[in-house]
């Protein structure tokens, strides 16, 4: 997983899965980088082949960290499974999905 800053956006690349095995690491690395200058988190989901409930919980955690800075979480190019799960649990109400 790679993190980079671009203007007011924190970009997350190279995730192949977001599950119980790496969700804590994801959370611990991303949350500290969210601040007033970088309130938007953009996750490239095109490479995410697997996500479970723990991974979905980690996305909520990131979303909550952006709220104090009027930020948001944007998921780019989610795979069909990720998109289906996001919609199934109504995360499309709080996360931005970009095809």
């Amino acid at each position, binding site marked *: 997983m790679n993190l980079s800053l671009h203007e007011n956006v924190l970009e997350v690349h190279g995730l192949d*899965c977001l*599950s*119980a*095995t790496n969700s804590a690491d994801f959370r611990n690395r991303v949350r500290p980088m969210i601040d007033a200058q970088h309130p938007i988190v953009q996750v490239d989901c095109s490479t995410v082949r*697997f*996500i*479970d*409930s*723990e991974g*979905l*919980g*980690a996305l*909520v*955690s990131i*979303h*909550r960290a952006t709220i104090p800075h009027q930020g948001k979480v944007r998921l780019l190019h989610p795979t*069909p*499974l990720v998109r289906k*799960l996001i919609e*199934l*649990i*109504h*995360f499309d*109400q*709080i996360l931005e999905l970009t095809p």
Partner: protein
Amino acid sequence: MNPPSSNPTRFNYRSQLRLEAGCDYSAVRTAAQTARQWLAEKKLTENELAELELLLVEVGNNAVKHATTETHKQNIVFDITVGEFEIEIQVTDHTPGFDWPEQIDLPDVESEHGRGLFLIQSLTDHANYLRSRRENVTVLRRRRATVIGQPPSVEELKRRLAEADSALSDMTAELSSSYESLVALFRYSAELGKHIELRDFSNRLLRDLIQIAEADYAVLRLASPDGRRLETLNVQPDTVGALPALNLAGDINSVETEAARTRQDIWFSPEEPLAKADPIVALAGNGCGLCHAFSFADQLVGTVAFGRFATDKPFSAAQVNLLHTFIDFLAIQVVNSRLLDERTAARVTRRELQIAADIQRSLLPATLPACPPFEFATVCQSALQVGGDFFDVIQTADGTTLLVIADVMGKGVPAALFAAVLRSTIRSMPQLFSQPGALLEAINQTLFDDLSRVDMFVTTALVYLDPQHGRLVSASAGHCPLLVWQPKADATGPAGNSGFPLGIENHTKYPQTVTPLPPGAVALLYTDGISEARNEAGELLGDHNLADILSDIARTNQRAQTGKKLLQERVAAFSGKAAMADDQTFIYIRHVQ
């Protein structure tokens, strides 16, 4: 992680994969990936593969989350069976497990946890969690996606036919092994709702269950109606002995009382033995087993304890599931039985009250004799339940009349029967009609033994109408006072004194009072249902108010029938919408001017 293995002996008609994984997230994920690779060979769609991988991870992660230090050492076993139309996943873990909720809802969208079971439920057609002491089995099933493409070749159809044939044979074998359980369950289903002797039903059910679940004994207890005790209904086999009732508030430390208090399955084994004082120890020693408490509408119905004598092998998850199913049948039958008993008791009570009402009606005079210059009118109105009020009007050969009013303690058939006995006894002593005091004394002596034997008593007032002298001769055995309105004084007051009610003291003397009843005067004999009538605020009418009402009515110089009607209306007006709590009986007597 152990390499994939297959179990061709049991499920050879379907493709099956068994994987074992360590109890940690990483091993679960690896097992799910391995399973996905294997499933990919079964021509499943990409969507199916992705969702099945997720299901395996969610179930496996649940086991990891609930593992303890000890149970972390035991592998999680994944059994995946791919059939022609359905995929089944069984995940066996050895953790303490958790309670599978009856309804699985999504948590708040901002919550970081609690979506695993929702995903499992959403992505399967059937999800079941069998929880046992050292083994939990999650069973998931989902239909296979329909793949539209080229029609199958002849070879493919032959292969499928062979698989189906083999599947049928194996399913027949499986069904045979479950035959006993199915037959028993069908039989119990058919018996539900019928009025079956509960002990016979539970005998059969416990015997069946002992055999099917390979138990050695079973103890069924039912909660007492007040919920304070567990009473033994059945011990199977009956050769193992009997057990005393258990006090739920007592200090006996037993798995049955603990299960009843906590409403949870309580397990016992050589590692976690029963308390020494536990009645199950005296019955079956310290084997292993469990006790299950069952309830209906949050009310404890009873407990069932099952155990094995000599082995420390606990019941499997499937056996525990079967136990719960059988006990559910038992709980329904227990509740049915109690409802039927209550309904029967209510029918008996209704019938008894009807009999009592018939008796009471038969005691009342069909017509009222004339006794000029006196006239009278009567009322006997029953409350919801049949009470012990009655009155009688007896005309003598010389044209005089004896008025009787009585209130037998209690309600129902016993009170009605004593009223009948009292009526007959009075009528058998015509020689004493003109001496009410002596008559009461004789009646008391006649009935005293019978009344004492059943701890009952009767209040009675007798009034002998003496038309020749325009007076009343009265006596009372603990009854409400005779009220008399005198026109000259325009005042109502009580007349005479009273002795003990009948049945209290064997040799009681009853004072006799002579009260003039001049033309225009009115007297009232009544039972306490009149003077103790209550209004909606719960206030009593009282003797004083009753006397005032009588004065109001009497001074208008109405006929007895009208006076009776007005008195009824005034008492009803006082009571308002308050329910009549007791019978209301009175005799309105007037000297016609």
